[in-house]
């Protein structure tokens, strides 16, 4: 027993001596899959660096950064006024880097001819003010609203850009993943839903709905002209340097951006 303990202890010591530098990343659950994949690939290339990633919300990430508990804060939104004030009063200089874009697209069943809706129409459909497809130029059938669980990042974008303060009607079907939204909408002619851009392709029986004539696409998401897109940030204290700079550089490199598109987000530049 003692022997095992000794070996365990020794190997732990050896490991900690080996992994000399540590990067702590805390923040948004939306950015979490990107940060995790980056950390994994980065640690494979740099075994002497230990990157730990925690996803507990953008606000908590920024708070951890300002408390000196994190090296990088993941955030799916820009810092709030109070956060910036608090940073300045503590002598911090928050430095944001856009690491990817998050874009979502409304979808309907392919059997439904509606292919275009305005943001206001979408809001009213989700609020429950518009309840029949005939009110928006479709066939006479009721609208079945499919939404995401209210703590998901995708819902966050929808709430921010489409609902704009209004509440999604309580009667909306609520599912827990992009894949389930697709399953619900592809199985129901009356349904409308929304998914991350990465899930749009290769999904049979669903059709994208353009927003006032504009379809979700990577270029529009990048340029900011597509209304349902947002940048995702990693925020550091001051201009990043040393290992932290290396890590972010890796993320912005073609291999890091390839990971971004693999986990369903829009990379900040074209990667092959």
């Amino acid at each position: 027993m003692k022997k095992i303990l000794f070996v365990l202890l020794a190997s732990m010591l050896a490991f900690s001596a080996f992994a000399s530098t540590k990067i702590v990343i805390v923040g948004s659950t939306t950015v979490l899959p990107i940060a995790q994949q980056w950390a994994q690939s980065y640690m494979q290339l740099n075994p002497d660096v230990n990157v730990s990633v925690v996803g507990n919300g953008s606000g908590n990430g920024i708070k951890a950064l300002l408390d000196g508990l994190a090296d990088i804060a993941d955030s799916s939104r820009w810092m709030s006024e109070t956060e910036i004030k608090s940073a300045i009063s503590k002598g911090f200089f928050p430095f944001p880097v856009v690491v990817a874009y998050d874009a979502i697209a409304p979808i309907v069943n392919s059997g439904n001819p509606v292919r275009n809706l305005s943001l206001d129409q979408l809001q009213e459909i989700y609020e429950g003010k518009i309840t029949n497809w005939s009110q928006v130029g479709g066939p006479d059938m009721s609208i079945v609203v499919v939404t995401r669980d209210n703590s998901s990042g995708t819902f966050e974008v929808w709430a921010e850009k489409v609902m704009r303060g209004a509440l999604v009607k309580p009667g909306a079907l609520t599912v827990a993943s992009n894949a389930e939204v697709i399953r619900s909408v592809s199985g129901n002619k009356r349904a409308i839903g929304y998914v991350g851009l990465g899930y749009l392709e290769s999904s049979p029986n669903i059709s994208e709905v353009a927003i006032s004539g504009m379809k979700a696409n990577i270029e529009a998401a990048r340029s900011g002209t597509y209304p349902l897109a947002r940048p995702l940030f990693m925020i550091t204290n001051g201009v990043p340097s040393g290992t932290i700079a290396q890590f972010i550089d890796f993320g912005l490199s073609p291999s890091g951006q390839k990971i971004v598109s693999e986990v369903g987000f829009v990379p900040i530049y074209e990667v092959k």
Partner: protein
Amino acid sequence: MKNIIDRVISVSGWVSIAIIVAITFFLFYNWIPLFKTASPIEFFFGTLWYPTAIPPFYGILPLLDATIWISFLTILITFPSAFVLAIFITHVAPKRLRYFLKIFLEIFSSVPSVILGLIGLSIVAPYFQNVFNMDTGQNILNAAIMLSLITIPMPTSMMEDFISAFSPEQKEGAQALGANEFETLTKVVIPGLKGPFASIAMLSLGRIFGETMIVLMVAGNAAIFPSSIFQPARVLSSTIAAEMGETPVNTPHFYALFGIGAVLFAMTFLINLVGEVIRIRYERQMMKG
């Protein structure tokens, strides 16, 4: 040797009691801070569940309502089916079929619930929509049917045990008085099963309350007060499953989810307690009689 075994058993008994107490404590400990943000009245009687809206709403009444609806409907389907199945196995089926059925039930009860959820979502839901022209097939009825399928084996085998253990003297007595097989069953065996049936119902109910995956996938999860069984509904357990993963730690939303857990725990505990009490009472009665 016996001493050691005794000790091991008593230690594991105490450990499991300690774990239950710790779980209870943990649930309540993480729930209490919610009351800084929302009062217990808001939590229990609030009609809106919008934990991430601004301002947020933490009312679980629609979730509680849906849980009761779905569980009630499931029991309504499960119980008669289990009863018929149990009678069939004990009295009607030929020996070989009986054997086969018992094995089948045992296997069926161990089918992972996610598979039934998938069947409900990809077969039953579109069927409801196309054949009955429902707005959505992800609704209470679908969830109740799928839940029944996974619940039925448990009460069936319990009922079957009770029926086959029914005292042969009483049966023979009835037959001696000229009752045929059917009359013995309806006049003697079934009336004698009231006690155990109530406790079986309670135990099944406990299982239904806790089942998460099927309801999450099939019930549609709309936090409304359903007015018919063709509407979607959201239950307590699936709310935790859908939201816990991405909820920031130590926020009111997080505390509220623990609150839901505590409520669910209390309900299951009470139901099982009632079930056990009924069972023990019945057994005492049997001893006396």
